[in-house]
């Protein structure tokens, strides 16, 4: 029976999980770094991978799920291609980060419960504090920090990404909208 491309993809990725497990010597104490590495690979923690990890570490699946659901960093559902994180730390909050969040949610039609757009292009989420309080309010789009953001500017940034996604000839999908940069 011929394997479908998706199945091949899966198998390859499970191979990566095995590699990650080996890197941490399959020690249950390394569970958090293991899950972090897996999430880095998959962008979220698929259920079947979690059960696989539990078996490999010889711990109950409940323990793995317990840890995966305890920490805010772990996502059990796939995220959109572009992740927009709005800082809702104290400094950003008093400098009106909520209107920015509301504008983005309205623009993309996401809510607190369903954070990702149906086309899997955007995920809008809040984060407790990014530690860039001097620039409040701050949003991060795909690891790039934008400071002193207004609702209008946030929406404009989304428009730029949308435009880029719509015209594959002008830019590669991974490229960032213009403006400030903070790559290292």
């Amino acid at each position: 029976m011929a394997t479908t491309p998706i199945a091949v993809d899966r198998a390859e990725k499970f191979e990566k999980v095995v590699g990650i497990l080996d890197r941490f010597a399959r020690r249950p104490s390394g569970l958090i770094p293991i899950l972090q590495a897996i999430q880095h690979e998959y962008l979220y923690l698929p259920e079947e991978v979690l059960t696989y990890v539990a078996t490999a570490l010889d711990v109950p699946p409940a323990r793995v799920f317990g840890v995966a659901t305890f920490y805010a960093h772990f996502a059990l559902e796939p995220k959109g291609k572009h992740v927009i994180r709005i800082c809702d730390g104290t400094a950003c909050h008093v400098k009106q980060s909520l209107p920015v969040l509301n504008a983005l949610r309205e623009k993309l039609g996401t809510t607190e419960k369903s954070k990702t757009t149906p086309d899997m292009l955007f995920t809008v989420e809040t984060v407790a504090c990014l530690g860039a309080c001097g620039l409040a309010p701050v949003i991060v789009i795909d690891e790039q920090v934008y400071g002193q953001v207004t609702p209008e500017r946030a929406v404009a940034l989304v428009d730029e990404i949308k435009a880029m996604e719509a015209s594959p000839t002008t830019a590669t999908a991974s490229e960032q909208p213009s403006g400030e940069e903070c790559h290292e």
Partner: protein
Amino acid sequence: MNNTEAFSTTEKGTGISTHAQVRRVIICAGTGCMANGAMKVYEQFKREMTGSGLRVILELRAEAAGDEVRLSKSGCQGFCQMGPLVSVVPDGILYTKVRSEDVADIVQQTLAGGEVVERLLYKDPSTRKSCRGLEDNPFYALQNRLVLSECGFLDPEDIHEYMLHGGYRAARKAFVEMSPEEICKTITDSGLRGRGGGGFPTGRKWDAARVQNSAKKYIICNGDEGDPGAFMNRSVMEGNPHSVIEGMMIAARAIGANEMLVYVRAEYPLAVQRMRNAVADAEREGILGKNVFGTGLAVKCEVMEGAGAFVCGEETAMIASIEGQRGMPRPKPPFPAQSGLWGKPTIINNVETLAHISRILNVGPDVFKSIGTKDSPGTKTFALTGHVANTGLVEVPFGTPLREIVYNIGGGVTDDAGKIWKNGFKAVQIGGPSGGCLTEDHLDLPLAYESLRSVGAMVGSGGLVAMNQGTCMVSIARFFMEFTQRESCGKCVLCREGTRQLLALLDDVIEGRADAGTLDLLEKLGHAVQIGSLCGLGKTAPNPVLSTMRYFRKEYEEHVFEKRCRTGRCKPLLSPEINQVKCKGCGLCIKACPTGAITGEKKQPHHINPELCIKCGACATACKIHAVEGI
């Protein structure tokens, strides 16, 4: 201020004199400046300087000639709002908000011509005076930067530079010349207290672990700075990672540990990377490893990323997290110093605490103690944010009054648009979700552990959020309560359920459902949660509510009894009305209203039906003559 002389970088090391004379262009590469394009500025400098005929060096070298200019990056210089920052030393010039377009002018006018580019200087918002450098800039001149001084000067990715400025000398002394008892005694004598919030004397903590009879002991650096609105630890890890590692090494020597671990918040990718690089560099230089300073003692260091749980800032929860468990605290005793990671004696110190250690060994406990107050010696960094003109990282001696920080260093309170608001001060929230609010009456209170505790606040990790008159204190209390409710690990019933109920009660206040009993219940439940919780998170979670109720009781009462929020922030309490005199009956508001709540004949004053109104404010935005009031 004289005491700081003893701490200054020039005094610490040897062989620095030639480098002190080399002209340097330092570009701040902290998170804030990088978000504003500091790396573009750095690249532009590289291009412009090479093209200008200047002798440019990018790497630190043993020999330096007088006519060279060194281009380097630094950690966070603290003045994040004005970034990207570029300083030229020894000229003593600080340029703010530098764009790559400005680089050519700096190279030609300042580096080649020796002149100042006036337009890039910082202007004091209250006096409109240009400030040339750190000395005449009130934001910096009024600080006492000990931990932060090197953050804005050293290249955080260059271990040699750190060593050239006296780095790892204290660690060497600790390993080669001092006994563990002597180290603990020196730290105890200095009076250093934990900078993470609790304020426990560091020397005594170390001593408790030192006397434990165990072949295996651990040192953990707590870099899980979860307090929203604080970024002191982030800046130190990013700006001077070696000072943290050196502090940990001295702690390791003091208690006899051979494994160290840095636990960094996952939201701080740059700090993680810089700490990892610093550890790798220290290993390469043989500072960390199997034979530290030729003593035959082994010390290794790992960096672990947190996974996003505020409660992990608590010692026992952090240990659980490192062991691969859910980060839930456990009862103390046994204290981690007796039985911590994997049941072995463990010392967990905050980043800032550790960054003080090498200095104390270098200058002695008496010099350290000469700054600050008797019970709270030394300096403390604060993240000054919110409605002040100058936001950023400040370091002042303990005992400094709040007024000095908000008005002199911070440049005064601003409105939402960032303009100075003369009588706009309302409160300062200190200590984050565990802390409390300070009011106008507290402006002259010296900031120290005990004085803050006496007014229901705490130093905490050092978040200082200034708030203007336009801020609703009930909403602020709700903001913190929502945070602690979300972050409660769920182990203690009173914390898990109590914070949820406190949040619901605050919602009642904000949404107009509260009555006299609500305020009573808030207070009672708040005290119950404090008593009935195991760890610091629950014990302090009601603080923001209780302290705002204590100092802004009237505002709570207005919400409850008059169903009114004086700042207009609490939407459900708004009652928009159309001013019948002003209204010209143009109909714009009728078109804008999404619920059809507005009616009225053309050219006749319109009305809002409060039953249909959802208080969205669309009418007020649409009205050109501002006839919609109360929203």
